[in-house]
């Protein structure tokens, strides 16, 4: 039988960005918080040998062990979902800090349009612009309402950047100046300016200079070592929960972190959670942690899966469109890119930082006219220099052999003669894209895996080709001798890495009939349960999601304090 522990004020499931922020905010105010983290503890000192591409990037050192738990995938309901047996399309984090440790640190804010996409699209283009199967929704919160929380996250991370001429209004400038500009980034800036576009330096959580945040945490400047995404930062320069919020929570004496604690159920009775059941994976023991408030802050898939396995909230039914848990799974369209090959120019491609880049938003959100286009939204266009590590970076012009003498010669010749312009195409929600429990495949505990039903739509194909063409135009202006860019978007496949920006499943909204949580991330169906993460995005924007997730976490912390005073639904 499960052992039952003494009750705590708040139990947090998953200690990454969302869990870490909420733990820090609540414990600072004297609330007792237990943080359950399924993976191991982490610290900066772990990364002494981090410049190891094989171990960290190719063999996924920091990622979830798929032998214990994975997801299953099918393109549509007519085929059998099968497990993602090896990594590909996205990388699931694990351990203290979660994906917040091995991310790139790109801290973009969503556009005002993102939060009111349905109303704004109808307002400008009419109802028919949105296809009947496209289930996009307004968030129930506007950019302006979320801005103060974005501002707090900016100050927490010390984000380095400069004003985005086409972004939402900011109450404060960036806490630190932008990162250094590489020669290829300068070429992009010159080309974009000449084309009357609006380039700005990518907002970076890898610091341009030493920064002390409002919690008194000081971090050093980024060294541009070229090992960022998929790696932990050996300097503590990259903003991550382990070097920012978690030490703050620990210092209060109110935070009890339990690693190797894998939560399997949210326990509830009469529309209220009573706690969670977890397994100490070092002993196999089942433990019940009672709590007044339960906060789910794991990744998209486990936030959704825990609710479905716990039978909490109304399960989404794709046939009728009723129900909410599992609804509106969305992703990102990143293949609309262009690669330029330069015969007479070499770059320091080996050097870089996760959030070193330069962007334009002229083709993001509704910053351009979609009247004659067969898609809505768009995506950020960026030239970034994150460090071209040699196993994974062997770009050759199309038509080149993929192995043998020609491949060797060309891959080496172009190793430092390429530049890439990429996009993060937004991803709209569709009625038939959703998450539910797989009927066949189980995790190491015997619990069902999360099943993803998803494919690219006409919206995505049109958007990807459009953005790739814009990337190619800029690359041409930059003077590349040869340009390869996407001409047609193939069906979604799980095998090649694309983006770890999965969203949805426990979406936010103003209406309990069409959303799972309110704008404080509070569950409509259980007011002492808060579900925080990109799981609450009703559809995905054209940027990295972390800044928005961080802002929502701050707002949730505020909501939890209110709830402790007054109880009931906060909206």
């Amino acid at each position, binding site marked *: 039988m499960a052992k039952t522990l003494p009750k705590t004020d708040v139990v947090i499931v998953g200690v990454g960005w969302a869990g870490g922020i909420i733990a820090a905010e609540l414990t600072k105010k004297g609330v007792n918080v237990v943080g359950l983290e399924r993976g191991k503890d982490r610290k*900066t000192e772990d990364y002494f040998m981090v410049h190891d591409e094989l171990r960290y990037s190719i063999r*996924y050192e920091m990622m979830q062990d798929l032998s214990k738990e994975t997801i299953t995938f099918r393109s549509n309901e007519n085929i059998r979902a099968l497990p993602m047996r090896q990594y590909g399309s996205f990388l699931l984090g694990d351990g203290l800090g979660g994906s917040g440790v091995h991310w790139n640190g790109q801290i973009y804010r969503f556009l005002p349009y993102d939060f009111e996409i349905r109303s704004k699209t109808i307002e400008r283009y009419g109802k028919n612009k949105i296809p009947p199967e496209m289930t996009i929704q307004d968030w129930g919160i506007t950019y302006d309402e979320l801005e103060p929380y974005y501002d707090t996250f900016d100050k927490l991370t010390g984000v380095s950047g400069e004003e985005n001429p086409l972004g939402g209004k900011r109450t404060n400038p960036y806490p630190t100046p932008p990162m250094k500009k590489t*020669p290829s980034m300068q070429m992009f800036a010159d080309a974009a300016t000449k084309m009357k576009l609006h380039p700005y330096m990518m907002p970076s959580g890898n610091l341009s200079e030493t920064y002390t945040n409002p919690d008194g945490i000081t971090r050093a400047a980024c060294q541009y070592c070229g090992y960022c995404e998929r790696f932990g930062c050996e300097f*503590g320069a990259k903003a991550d929960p382990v070097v920012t919020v978690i030490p703050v929570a620990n210092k209060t004496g109110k935070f009890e972190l339990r690693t190797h604690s894998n939560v399997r159920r949210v326990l509830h009775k009469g529309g209220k959670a009573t706690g969670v059941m977890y397994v100490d994976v070092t002993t196999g023991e089942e433990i019940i942690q009672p709590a007044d408030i339960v906060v789910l802050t794991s990744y998209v898939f486990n936030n959704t899966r825990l609710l479905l396995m716990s039978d909490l909230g109304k399960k989404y039914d794709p046939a009728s469109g009723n129900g909410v848990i599992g609804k509106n799974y969305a992703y990102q369209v990143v293949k609309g890119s262009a690669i330029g090959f330069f015969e007479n120019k070499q770059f320091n491609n080996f050097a870089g930082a996760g959030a070193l880049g330069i962007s334009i938003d002229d083709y993001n959100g509704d910053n351009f006219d979609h009247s004659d286009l067969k898609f809505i939204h768009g995506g950020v266009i960026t030239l970034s220099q994150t460090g071209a590590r040699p196993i994974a970076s062997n770009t050759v012009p199309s038509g080149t052999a993929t192995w043998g003498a020609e491949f060797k*010669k060309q891959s080496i010749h172009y190793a430092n003669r390429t530049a890439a312009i990429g996009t993060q195409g937004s991803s709209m929600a569709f009625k038939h894209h959703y998450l539910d429990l797989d009927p066949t495949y189980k995790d190491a505990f015997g619990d069902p895996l999360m099943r993803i039903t998803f494919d690219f739509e006409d919206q995505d194909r049109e958007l990807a080709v459009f953005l790739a063409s814009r990337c190619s135009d800029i690359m041409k202006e930059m003077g590349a001798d040869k340009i390869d860019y996407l001409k047609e978007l193939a069906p979604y496949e799980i095998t090649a890495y694309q983006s770890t920006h999965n969203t949805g499943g426990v979406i936010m909204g103003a209406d309990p009939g069409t959303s799972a949580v309110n704008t404080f991330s509070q569950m409509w169906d259980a007011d002492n349960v808060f579900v925080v993460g990109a799981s609450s995005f009703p559809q995905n924007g054209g940027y990295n999601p972390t800044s928005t997730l961080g802002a929502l976490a701050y707002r949730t912390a505020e909501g939890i304090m209110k709830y402790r005073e007054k109880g009931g639904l906060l909206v």
Partner: protein
Amino acid sequence: MDKDKSGDNGGGTNEREADGQSRRRFLINTGYAIGGVVVGGALGSLLSTKGKVKAKEPKQPAGTAGAAEPKNYNRGLMFFTQEQYRIVEAATERIFPEDATGPGAKSLGVAFFIDHQLAGEWGFNGRDYMSAPFFTGEKTQGYQGRLKRREVFEIGLREMENYSLTKHQNSFAKLSGEQQDEVLKAFESDEVQLTTISASGFFKTLRSSTLEGVYADPLYGGNMDMKGWTMRNYPGNQMSYTAVIDKDFTVIEPSSLQDHLVGH
């Protein structure tokens, strides 16, 4: 010579100085503490070695024992039979051959790299989901086989040998380069139909593990003496590029994880 290289070998020397400066700056920058805990795990070790960062011992050639070279005890087989080793050595050399640019897979030790990888977790698919039931899936769903990489290699290499004997009446390792390419292409294109594994899937793994062996840190048994990196001007493990990040192309002498460990 490339116009934008900042000198041929000179780049390395300049770089050492630049690196030293940025290191000092880094030490200044990171002289902070969070509640008594020093920022940056690499910091303590950096502090202890101030000034001797690049004072390396002369490089030890890791090559197979020549008269004047020290023995490399890494050069043994953990998994392959001698016959399998010879096929892999020959096949990876065709995938990444020696040419005017520099060494190929054979002299970089790629076959040893693959052998060592198959002997461990990767060979056993230790962190892959390998639970039943197994079904043939759509291409978009990825690998759905029940066989582990070491089993796939055993079958794939045996089939390459069988195909070579049938088609060319000789062992794969003894075929001409052109004949070897022809065999590899037959696998790459699934012209060879195998009952238990996908020929093209096996070829894909062989190709990707060849590149891994060429470019992974030498500690894994390939990329001998960092020559894979040198060939493409990849500097390996460097603590900082602050001094060159906004500059034109710079050649930097590579450094390995062993250098990092020994140096700190």
